């Protein structure tokens, strides 16, 4: 007899299939990957171009999230302003919106005939849709909410009295922000950046709607996987495997921090 409080019986019956739905496809990809040709597959022209493009666009999308998301997250955590609840809801909207709908929305905003896009084209000759910039914007649209949410929680956890202490020891508002606030949230900042980057790297729906699927210009890795799969190309499997390795790497790099970051800003 085990001497402890008995849990509800039979939960495993339901928990195991849930785990299987995640685990079995991963095993399937590992199993079907042609490992002897793995490097050849991911370094053929289409794959390599897609990889380089993905790395570049996801880097820029993550940088945009860092530059514009950090101030917004701080304001949400520290300041009261009109329509704050609305602003926060709009920040989270892309998380619940189907990405392809986000892409359509971006198209109608920044496309050639779009709300802003028409003027951009007319006045400055700037056409965003179906360019590499569009791929970056699509990734930013979908990934930035993760950054903002994690960072808002992180800023909210910062002890305001420590920032006050920094001020009394001669630091101006900016110096206190950089040396104390940002220093204290650094673990969360790292987690937020990795999470945002991973989401940007995997972006598909918004990209295909707003940036299209042009090899060398807007065909990022997920789009390349899709195209190769459509044409029955075995290379799709190798690229999928690569994406899986990257995702696993992200999880290992962050370990428990990812979950605690989502839960409470990771501090």
């Amino acid at each position, binding site marked *: 007899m085990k001497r402890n409080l008995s849990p509800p019986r039979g939960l495993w019956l339901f928990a195991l299939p849930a785990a299987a739905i995640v685990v079995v496809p991963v095993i399937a990809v590992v199993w079907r990957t042609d490992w002897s040709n793995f490097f050849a597959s991911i370094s053929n022209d289409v794959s390599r171009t897609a990889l380089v493009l993905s790395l570049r666009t996801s880097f820029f999308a993550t940088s945009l999230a860092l530059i514009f998301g950090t101030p917004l997250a701080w304001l949400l955590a520290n300041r009261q302003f009109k329509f704050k609840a609305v602003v926060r809801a709009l920040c989270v909207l892309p998380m619940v919106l189907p990405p392809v709908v986000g892409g359509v929305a971006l198209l109608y905003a920044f496309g050639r005939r779009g709300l802003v896009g028409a003027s951009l084209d007319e006045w400055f000759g700037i056409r965003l849709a179906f360019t590499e910039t569009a791929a970056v914007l699509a990734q930013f649209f979908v990934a930035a909410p993760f950054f903002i949410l994690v960072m808002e929680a992180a800023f909210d956890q910062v002890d305001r*009295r*420590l920032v*006050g*202490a*920094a*001020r*009394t*020891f*001669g*630091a*101006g*508002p900016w110096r206190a922000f950089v*040396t*104390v606030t940002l*220093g*204290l949230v*650094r673990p969360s900042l790292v987690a937020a950046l990795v999470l945002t980057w991973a989401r940007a790297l995997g972006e598909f729906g918004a990209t295909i709607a707003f940036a299209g699927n042009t090899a060398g210009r807007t065909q990022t890795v997920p789009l390349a996987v899709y195209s190769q799969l459509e044409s029955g190309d075995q290379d799709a499997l190798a690229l999928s495997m690569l994406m899986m390795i990257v995702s696993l790497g992200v999880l290992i790099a962050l370990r428990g921090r990812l979950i605690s970051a989502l839960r409470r800003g990771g501090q």
Partner: protein
Amino acid sequence: MSLEIDCRLLRGKFSLDVQLSVERGSTLAITGENGSGKTSTLDMVAGLLACTEGKILLHGKALDDSTSGRFVQPELRGVSTVFQGGGLFSHLSVEKNILFGRNAAYKNTTKLDNTIGQFNLAGLMSRKPPTLSGGQRQRVALARAFLAPSDILLLDEPTTSLDAVSRDEVRRAMKAFFEIYDGVVILVSHDDTEVAELATQVARVRVSRDETTSAKLGGLVVK
């Protein structure tokens, strides 16, 4: 030359009236029950809170004045603080905490060396605050506050979290420092022995509970 406080803080239903005057070179102890507004008083002097009405003057110049709208930012007030629990930056080493706000020229000076020796910090300089005991943290916080050039030194229950041995040690260090310090010291303390030993004047916050909670700080008792 002195610090003059004559102000009121309103926060929802809570109101705090403070009327205090502290001469340069003297130490004012503030006592009173928890939640009565002792820390808020320090925050108003430090510039972390603005007075709702009234003013705070240092050597005749307004740090905060609700009539003229003047409010000097904390970093420009020449205050130095030891917050409850120390107020140390947990992501920075002890050395960086102590030198926070000082320039690099401050390193390796005799004043720094003396303070490190006085507070017995030599072996702790590269550690981070979360790895220190409560007493060690408090010694770091005091060293940081003593090293900062200031006109006003604010101490919020600096010995509360300490055991008896380190409390005596820290008190001796404070006493020695107050004797050479020529600014204004405000010390919030619950400890009567400490107040008797260190303070040159005492103010008690009196809380009256009627419809709204209000507290009055003033009516100086000069030793």
